[in-house]
């Protein structure tokens, strides 16, 4: 059965690149334009992994992670941050919020899918 990934980023081109790379690796992809949209889509359909940006208008990535972790069916779903930020403080905040990993942009499709395969097969 195809695993589904929720890709949350306010940049259209980044979402396009993510979607292209993940579909080529055999995953289904749901796109969301910001944290609120991501939360709404996660509620509509349970996904196998969430990949989210941090800096977005409205609800940011950390707030999205906290909201997802508060939902019973998302307590064990892997969540990865994909962001331009790489500071230790923000990473620690991500980890505390419930992120399973931190990926600094730009991403390489092969390395990204390698990490995702480790987490959800």
């Amino acid at each position, binding site marked *: 059965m195809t695993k589904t990934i929720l890709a949350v*980023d306010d*940049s*259209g*081109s*980044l979402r*396009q*690149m993510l979607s*292209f*790379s993940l579909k080529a690796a055999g995953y289904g992809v749901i796109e969301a334009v910001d944290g609120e949209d991501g939360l709404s889509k996660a509620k509509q359909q349970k996904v196998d992994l969430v990949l989210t940006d*941090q*800096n977005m208008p409205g609800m940011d990535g950390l707030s999205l992670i906290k909201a997802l972790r508060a939902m019973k069916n998302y307590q064990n779903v892997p969540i990865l941050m994909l962001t*331009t*930020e*790489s500071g230790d403080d923000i*990473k620690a905040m991500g*980890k505390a919020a419930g*992120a*399973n*990993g*931190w*990926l*600094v*942009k*730009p*991403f*390489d*499709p*092969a*390395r990204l899918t390698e*990490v995702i395969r*480790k987490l959800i097969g």
Partner: protein
Amino acid sequence: MISHEAQPSELMNVQVVRLLSGVSVHGDQHLAEVERDLVQMDVLLNEAIKKLCASFMAIHHAVDLQQAALDSLLADNMRTPEYAARFKTLRGEIDRHVGAAVTGLQFQDMTSQLIGRMVQHLAGLRNVFGALDTKGTDMPESGNEALLAMLNHISDRVGAHCTELAGGVRSTVNQRHMNSGDIELF
């Protein structure tokens, strides 16, 4: 107009007001132009990345179809294994180039974030310049005390705009190269 009977303190007050208004108006004009150009640059970059992405996807799709046709020809004609190995190598090279292109095409996400920050800072600076403008209403008639009161009022307005700006600006981008970033699993 300043009358010939005007006192030195009155002259100074008028000059201060003129100076502040001049800085405010001209500063705002220049910043408005820079802001307009940045927004225009963002529009063009956005348009360019859309076209680049669409073309890139189309090329990739065409290469996929070509590869499938070649695989089919090879299978039908039972060609020698050397051909199959050669096409496999080519496929690997194409995949590497596609991966590198996907990484490079992410530039717009970062430039857009930087432009967004610059526009926010410009808007903040325009507010600061706006705060310097007395618009004639606060002009003291005479005396250093009145001038001081007016300058204090302006200073408070500038401070308020600076505080407002500091709280709402997006994070900066520190990447210097378009190579794949670090990955850390917790």
